[in-house]
């Protein structure tokens, strides 16, 4: 599948560096550096209609009826205002703060049908890998590369190696796509897929809805993958049909015929193969400061004293020191101060449904936020009454954006605060300086809200 898509985007080659045609480019407020480069070089934007911008990182998640004027911090407000100015100047489509379709740059394009099978998509954001769930090649790039893409609609790249992960088995109750990808990262290590484009295959993946596939592809970067992909199938096509940017009528039929040619042939060869048995998994939590520091919730905090490798021992000890955890304590006993359900990993409608199912069983004991990934998700959830389930259980129902995932819109943890979070990174200070993050699935996050600790969500299903 990768080769078929890659080959049709090659314009030229210089000693193994390929000049690739870019179908779609995505970015957010953080691309101010790329615009400075464009301006400095007096380059125009070559195909503005293929470039899409999103207000997500810097938007507030409450008080949104006031629009931009509601952002108190002038520096943050400027980021939002500048994106609007820059996109207007260059004729780029912006899903702005007031747009009824507003949301995170990895949530909105699939919803709008901008993400399609067979595309080469880039984003000035590492989690662009999310879009590979539709059978496209999608990856993150830096500001210089983004300036290059905008100026030329092309990108210089080397061919990545390919890695297929076959995931079979049906996950038990309380085990979700998030647990599958965390288990895979724990198994392979945070650099396990470095330099590789990962194709996720197998019966578990085939059985997942698009939301689950996106969660998995989203976190490809967390084990070093250049991108993640899932072959398009009936689930993909059913999701796409009728979306605003999806082809219509005769074009839809033509597109379908083309998309069906994309999946890898039987016997396709990959540079590397891995596998995982999803049937054997328990809900996962992270205990440290790298996504590879993940373990089944039934486990215990590791004891560095029992690790023979010196480098590993130092690393674990440093992580536990930052996280303020005692070796050997049960993971399910870790008490949390807050809960965050949101981010481009887990803020789609299926995620909110899973969390709501748990939220019905009690009341939140710690401040717990629900931040839907987009206005569309928010509206859908409200139509299903999920917002009332959450607010009835004491959760806060907020407006879409990246919010606590990266803590630059003003939402952040206080130093020392511990958060059960459905986002993708538990790096030091990711959710605010000194904040401590435990990555979990939306259902596990809801269970943490109800119990005030990293409880095994399966307790709620008996």
């Amino acid at each position: 599948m990768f080769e078929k898509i890659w080959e049709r985007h090659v314009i030229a080659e210089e000693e193994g560096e390929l000049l690739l045609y870019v179908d779609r480019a995505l970015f957010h407020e953080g691309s101010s550096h790329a615009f400075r480069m464009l301006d400095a070089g007096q380059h125009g934007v070559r195909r503005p209609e293929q470039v899409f911008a999103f207000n997500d990182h810097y938007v507030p998640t409450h008080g949104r009826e006031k629009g931009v004027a509601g952002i108190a911090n002038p520096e943050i407000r400027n980021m939002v205002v500048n994106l609007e100015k820059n996109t207007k100047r260059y004729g780029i489509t912006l899903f702005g703060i007031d747009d009824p379709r507003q949301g995170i740059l990895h949530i909105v394009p699939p919803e709008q049908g901008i993400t399609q099978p067979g595309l080469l998509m880039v984003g000035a954001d590492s989690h662009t890998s999310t879009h590979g769930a539709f059978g496209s090649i999608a990856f993150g790039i830096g500001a210089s590369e983004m300036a290059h893409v905008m100026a030329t609609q092309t990108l210089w790249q080397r061919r990545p190696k390919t890695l297929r992960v076959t995931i079979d088995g049906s996950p038990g109750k309380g085990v979700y796509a998030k647990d599958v990808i965390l288990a895979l990262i724990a198994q392979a290590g945070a650099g396990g897929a470095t330099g590789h484009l990962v194709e996720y295959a197998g019966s578990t993946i085939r059985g997942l809805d698009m939301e689950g596939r996106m969660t998995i592809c989203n976190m490809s970067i967390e084990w070093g993958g250049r991108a993640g992909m899932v072959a398009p199938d009936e689930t993909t096509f059913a999701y796409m049909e009728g979306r605003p940017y999806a082809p219509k009528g005769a074009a839809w039929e033509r597109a379908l015929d083309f998309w069906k040619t994309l999946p890898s042939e039987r016997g396709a060869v990959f540079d590397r193969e891995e596998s995982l048995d999803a049937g054997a998994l328990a809900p996962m939590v992270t205990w440290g400061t790298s996504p590879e520091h993940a373990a089944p919730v039934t486990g215990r905090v590791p004891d560095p004293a029992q690790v023979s490798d010196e480098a590993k021992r130092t690393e674990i000890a440093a992580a536990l020191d930052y996280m303020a955890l005692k070796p050997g304590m049960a993971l399910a006993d870790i008490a949390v101060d807050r809960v965050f359900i949101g981010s481009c990993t887990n803020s789609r409608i299926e995620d909110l449904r899973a969390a709501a199912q748990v939220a019905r069983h009690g009341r939140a004991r710690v401040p717990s936020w629900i931040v839907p990934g987009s206005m569309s998700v928010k509206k859908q959830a409200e139509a299903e009454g999920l917002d009332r389930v959450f607010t009835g259980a004491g959760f806060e129902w907020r407006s879409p954006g990246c919010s606590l995932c990266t803590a630059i819109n003003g939402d952040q943890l206080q130093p020392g605060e511990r958060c059960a979070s459905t986002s993708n990174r538990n790096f030091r200070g990711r959710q605010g300086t000194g904040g401590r993050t435990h990555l979990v699935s939306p259902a596990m996050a809801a269970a943490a809200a109800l119990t005030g600790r990293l409880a095994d969500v399966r307790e709620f299903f008996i």
Partner: protein
Amino acid sequence: MQPFTKLTGIAVPIDEPNVDTNQLCPTRFNKVPRGPRHAEILFHDRRFEADGRDKDFILNREPYRHAQIVVADRNWGCGSSRESAVYALYEFGIRSVIASSFGDIHASNCCKNGLLPVVLAQEDVVAIRRQLHAQPGATVTVDLAAQTVTDPAGKVYRFEIHPVRKQCLLEGLDDISRTRQYAERFEMFEEAYRRETPWLFVER
């Protein structure tokens, strides 16, 4: 972009694996326009207390305040695609990072800014760091043309780098002008491509 040719400089050992770009440039500094302020931003939350006092972090100690080379561990620069992580390294004075593996996007961002990422075997980076800890302030030489690293003891390691990356770094070439030479090819390509998959093109 400044060309990178050959550099002999103080090398700082950073022993941790998985140093992510959030460490190199904490997220709240992403909005800072590129400039000298980035020197302070590098590893900001590891280097400074909330009130601005220095913490005990290796880059705050002499002679490492003048380091030009980082010798790291595995998976350096993983995480976010932020190029500001490279600006922070660059403005601090770092021109080359030696590690056993890199986050892909970060490595590419380094090259676009005249900062050379060098991949050596894990046992080699460990060995070089050990020497640096034993002799703080020792220098390492990175020679891009020859594709070699020379450690304080004089041992030479060869590294691989893609020829195009190498040439761009040696000459300080910027990509956009390189790509402009393909304008005609681009037009032909796009026309054929549009015919094959017309639905991909958004009409406005």
